[in-house]
Structures are given as C-alpha cells and as structure tokens.
C-alpha cells in the first residue's frame, strides 16, 4: 500500500509540469479562441465587447472568406487524390524492384524534409514567365505555348497544388511501401496459382489490404491541405493569396485578419470553423477505420 501511494505521488510529480503546460499552452488558448470569436476585439482597444454569434453571421457574408473556404476545399480536392494516386503507383512500382529501392525512396522523400519556405521560392523561380522561368523555357523548347502559372486566376492554385504534392509525395510513398511489405506473400502466390492476373491481384488483394493506410493518408493529407499556408504566403505576390484572391486559403485569411487588419474576433471565428472541419474529418476517419478492423 505504501509503495502504491509512493508511486501515485511520483507519477503526479512527473506529470505536474507537463500537465500545466497542456492546460496553459493548449486548452486555455483553445477556449480563449472560442471566446474571442464571440467578441469584436481589434487588438488595439482595451475592451472586448461580447457580440454573440454576430461574427459567425457576418463572416459568411464576407466574399473573401467564402472564396477562401472554396479555395481551401479546392486544395484538398485536387491535392489529396493526386498525392495518394501518384504515391501509391510509385510505391507499387518500387515494391516490384529489388535493387536500389532505398536509393529511390531516399530521393523521393527529400522534398518532405526541406524547409517549405525554400521549396516555395524555388518553385516560384521555376514558375516565372518568359524569358526567365525554367518551366516556360522548357515548354518553349518543346514547341508549346508558355503558361501564366502563378500569374493567372485559374492556374495559380493548381500550380501551388503541384508544389505541395511534390513535397508530400515521398512521405506517402514510404508509408505505402511499408504497408505493401506487410502484405503476406502467400496471399499473392495463392492468387497467382488460382490464375489471377496482375490487375486482379491489385484490385482484389493489394488495395483492399491497403485500405486502412489509404484512409489514414487521405485524412492526414486532407488536414495538411486544409492547413496550407506557407506555400501560398511565399509563392504569391506580396503574400496576398492573389491574383484576385484566387489562391487564398483559410489560414492565410486568418493570418491577414488577425495580424494585418487586427480583426481578432473575425480571425478567431475563422479558426473555430477550421477546427470544426478538422474535427469532422478526424471523426470520419475514426468511424471508417473502426469498421475496417472487422474487415
């Protein structure tokens, strides 16, 4: 009994500072953000007026916010399928070879650990217009028309998606490859003996067995794309999310509202909405994955 009490005391001694940390640096700020979203605080004035749900009503009347939400969903809708399909394909091909597997994997994952700011500027440099942009120069050499990329309202967002896919690809490849290597070889051998061809093996065995990993990656990548900021801030003119707000994601909207217009109430409201979206996606993941266990 004495030992048990001693252990409890030890445990709480060990946990005291970390618990304080989580309360002060995680939970309290979260609650504070909720509270701010019900005020009209502008950073400068000393008092915060409680205005109820007014921010939530007004924010949806803000064209720029609606645009930012649509853009954010576009990032997810373009980016997540692209990164998952390409990385799955790469992992399948990589899984087929025996030599240099590690080497290729290494090259693919390099962008993932590189500072995103550096990556953004390198791509911005490559996306430049003629006569200085590398990609456009390549297009010209190939006899194709040059493209406006970051300068156009229709191409800027996809261009940023390409950069982001490039960054996250290696991470997904590694995870898929690890998943593929856990698939028992007997399953595939057995299927082959039964006369299944490659495609059938892929669709009937490999992909169903990879399902939990696909869901996991779909969710983590969705959250990554939902929180996109650094690329847009660095790749668009003056960090504005332009041209004409065509690339502005939710987080850049929050940043501008909070730290350029000092409209803390509206910014906090937008963060709560972001939080809600992420919660929903995470819950969906939990539900799907729990189902899969019985699979």
């Amino acid at each position, binding site marked *: 009994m004495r030992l048990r009490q001693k252990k409890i005391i030890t445990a709480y001694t060990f946990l005291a500072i970390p618990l304080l940390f989580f309360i002060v640096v995680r939970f309290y700020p979260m609650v504070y953000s909720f509270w701010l979203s019900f005020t009209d605080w502008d950073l400068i004035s000393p008092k915060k007026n409680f205005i109820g749900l007014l921010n939530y009503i007004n924010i949806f009347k803000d064209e720029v916010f609606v645009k930012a939400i649509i853009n954010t969903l576009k990032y997810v809708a373009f980016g997540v399928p692209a990164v998952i399909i390409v990385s799955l394909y790469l992992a399948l091909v990589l899984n*087929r070879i025996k030599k*240099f597997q590690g080497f290729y994997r290494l090259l693919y994952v390099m962008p993932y650990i590189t*500072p995103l700011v550096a990556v953004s500027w390198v791509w911005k440099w490559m996306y430049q217009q003629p006569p200085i942009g590398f990609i456009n120069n390549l297009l010209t050499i190939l006899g194709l028309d040059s493209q406006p990329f970051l300068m156009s309202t229709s191409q800027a967002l996809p261009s940023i998606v390409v950069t982001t896919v*490039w960054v996250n690809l290696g991470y997904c490849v590694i995870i898929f490859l690890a998943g593929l290597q856990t698939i028992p070889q007997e399953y595939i051998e057995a299927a082959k003996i039964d006369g299944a061809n490659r495609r059938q093996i892929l669709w009937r065995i490999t992909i169903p067995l990879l399902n939990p990993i696909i869901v996991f990656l779909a969710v983590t990548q969705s959250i990554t794309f939902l929180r996109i900021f650094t690329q847009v801030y660095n790749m668009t003119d003056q960090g504005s999310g332009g041209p004409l707000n065509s690339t502005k994601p939710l987080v850049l909207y929050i940043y501008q509202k909070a730290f350029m217009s000092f409209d803390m109430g509206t910014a906090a409201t937008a963060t709560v909405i972001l939080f809600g979206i992420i*919660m929903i996606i995470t819950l969906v993941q939990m539900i799907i994955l729990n189902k899969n266990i019985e699979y």
Partner: protein
Amino acid sequence: MVKRDRLTTISAYVFLTIFAVLMVFPFIWMFSSSFKDSGEIYEFNLFPKYPTLYNYQYIFNYSLFPRWFLNSLLIAVVTTVSVLFFDSLIGYTLAKFDFPGRKLIFILILSTLMIPTEMLVIPWYIMVRNLHWMGTYWSIMFPGMISAFGIFLMKQFMSTIPNDLIDAARIDGVSEFGIFFKIVLPLVKPALATLAIFNFIGNWNAFLWPLIVTSSPKMYTLPVGVAYFSSENSMSWELIMTGAAVSTIPLIIFFLIFQKQIVKGITMSGLKG
C-alpha cells in the same frame, strides 16, 4: 515469362528514374542558380559558365543569415532537448505507473493533437504580448516545449519494457529518477532518436508561428529570414536561391546521416492508426 518480367523490371527502373529526376531537379536548379552571377542568372544552362561563390559570400557577410542560422539552431536544439526529456518522462509515467486519472490524462493529451496550431496562435500571441515576451527566443520556443505526438510514441515504446526490470531496480533502492535515466531511457534509444530527428526538422522548418511572433529581424529563424530576404523589393533571384540553399543544406546533411531513422519514423507515424 522470364523475358516479360525482365522487361517490366527495366521499365520500372526507367519510370522510377524519370520520377527521381523530377523530384530532384528543383534542388539542382536551386544550387545551379546559387552559383551563377547576376549576369548569368537568367540563362538556362544547368552548369554555370562562370561559377561563383559571390552569392554565398554576400549572404554570409552582408545579410543576417548567419544570425538566423544560429537562431534556428538554438531553437531547434533547445525544443528538441526539452521534448525528449518531457515526452519520455510522461510516456514512461503513463505506461508504467498505475494511478487514478491515468487514462483520462492520456486521452486529454492525445486530444490536443486535434487542435490545429492556427487556432492557438492568436491566444499565444496575446500571451506573449501581455507577458512581455516579445523579442525573446522563449516566445518562439514555448509552444513546442512538449509534444503530444511524442508522448504517444514514447508511451507505446515504454509499454514494451518488462515491469520486472523496473521493479527489480526499485527493490535495489534505485531512485525513481535513477530508474528513468539509467534503466528506461537506454532501452528506448531508437525511439528517442526518431523523436529527436522529427522534432528537430519540424522546428527547423516551422514558419507560421515564428513569422507571427518575431519582431526584429535579428530574432528571425531561417525560414522567416528567407521569406523576408526574398520579398524585399529589389529582387535578385541568384541571392534568393542562395538563401534557399543555405537553409536547405544543413537538412540535406542531416538527412543523409539519419536517413534510416527518418524513414523508420515516417513508417511509425503512418502505421500508428
């Protein structure tokens, strides 16, 4: 059959190599541009005709890059040390101590993983302002001193340590901290290494929070410095690429040394679900 297999193998290598070139090319172009002078920067030759180190000299002598480099290093090292210490201690406590509220605490800590940083930056910023932390390293580091994901990772690893080992030490009269440092930590070295590497990379690359909280250029971290340096209105692409290269080189070196742990760490993060 064998012949067909060989063909598919060759085409696999060809495909993978083409993709590898696509993945690596931006790095090559970045380094190539960083060795060009302002007269050659707008030409498309991969290898500079007149390679120069001038851009690097400029960056090290006439910009704050050396300072930013040290800032980033300091912040990444201090937060990583802190995360290693606290996360393993909490992970150990949660795995090996039975006490009321253990499950609740674990769930509470894990649930913070769902809170996006973006939701916290505004309150953090107000906190920093009110507590007069503006312009200190502490203001950049404090949110990252403990990581919930690390706790999860460490708890999983600590659970695999046999209880007998710990109890035996306790009977021998080793203090609780002694057990933690001398017996538990050496057993989870691989996990510690993974956590350290990821935390270091994460802090080295962090952008949003340092962008918000650093006020004077002297306090910038490398990513904020690169963004600031690059967006200054008279643009020199060769200098921007050199800045990008300077912020990338340490990570490439780091990566080449620790590649195994990095790949393992990513795998672990992916298979946790």
